[in-house]
């Protein structure tokens, strides 16, 4: 059982982080408000989970201005995508084994 759990990534061990990564896997760039709407979470909650994924270098932040309004967009890094794929595969294997 130990070896099976190896690929389960602790960084994704939370519903919101799982959600953020899922969204970024299928969309190139997503802004903060869209993520918030999709996941149905508060600003602070989302920000802290984004920070955690950013620290792992799984997502990248892109800040720009639309007119005078600042707009922050997020995208998954290659490392993030690979890690997330491994995580999904590990989940699938765990389900098959039991």
């Amino acid at each position: 059982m130990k070896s099976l759990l190896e690929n389960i990534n602790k960084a994704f061990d939370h519903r919101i982080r799982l959600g953020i990564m899922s969204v970024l896997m299928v969309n190139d760039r997503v802004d903060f408000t869209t993520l918030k709407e999709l996941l149905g979470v508060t600003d602070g909650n989302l920000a802290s989970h984004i920070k955690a994924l950013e620290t792992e270098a799984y997502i990248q932040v892109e800040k720009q201005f639309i007119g005078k309004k600042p707009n922050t967009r997020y995208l998954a890094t290659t490392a993030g995508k690979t890690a997330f794929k491994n995580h999904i595969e590990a989940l699938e294997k765990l389900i098959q084994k039991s």
Partner: protein
Amino acid sequence: METNDYLKDLKEIKEMMSKSSQTLSLSGLSGVLAGLYALAGAGYADHLLQAYEVEDYSESRGVIGFPLDALSLQLMGLATVIVLASIVTGIVLSAKKAKKMGETLWNASSRRLLINFSIPLVTGGLLVLILLFKGYYELIAPIMLLFYGMGCVNASKFTFRDVRYLGLTQIVLGLMAAYFKDSDLLFWALGFGVCHVLYGAMMYVKYDRN
């Protein structure tokens, strides 16, 4: 974590992926209704054409120097009513479905759906208007079908796969309407009427009825 939790995780990942990239609140029933409006409209158009005793409306010409005769204006009015009724029905029923699914109708993916649908559609609409004002009536029905079909294909990446097949069917019918141009009203009715009813009903049974 137990197996159930892992299963739940996978399910949530899948749901979030499709929710964030696709609009699933598109209502099938609104397609059926739009098709019925189109059929009623085509029936009425046929009646108008016969009342004016023009078998082939592409040969109808208005007063000298002004190509838009009374018949053309009536047909344009009729088309506008059908389009508006279909749009309103689509918005109302999709908003209702979105509410039932606990989603908002106006979000990032529905915006993308609309933009990608509109680019071919607005192009086709403008082309039809230009042809009308220039007095070229021959290709209006096929152009409507072709550009609408391309709009559907273009938008289908952001919603149900069925919309892609609807678009492809419209394109085929559009080409046929261009070739058999004496029966273009028939193809128009097949495309905008019968196809919408069929695909709408199929989508209703597949996704809405629960």
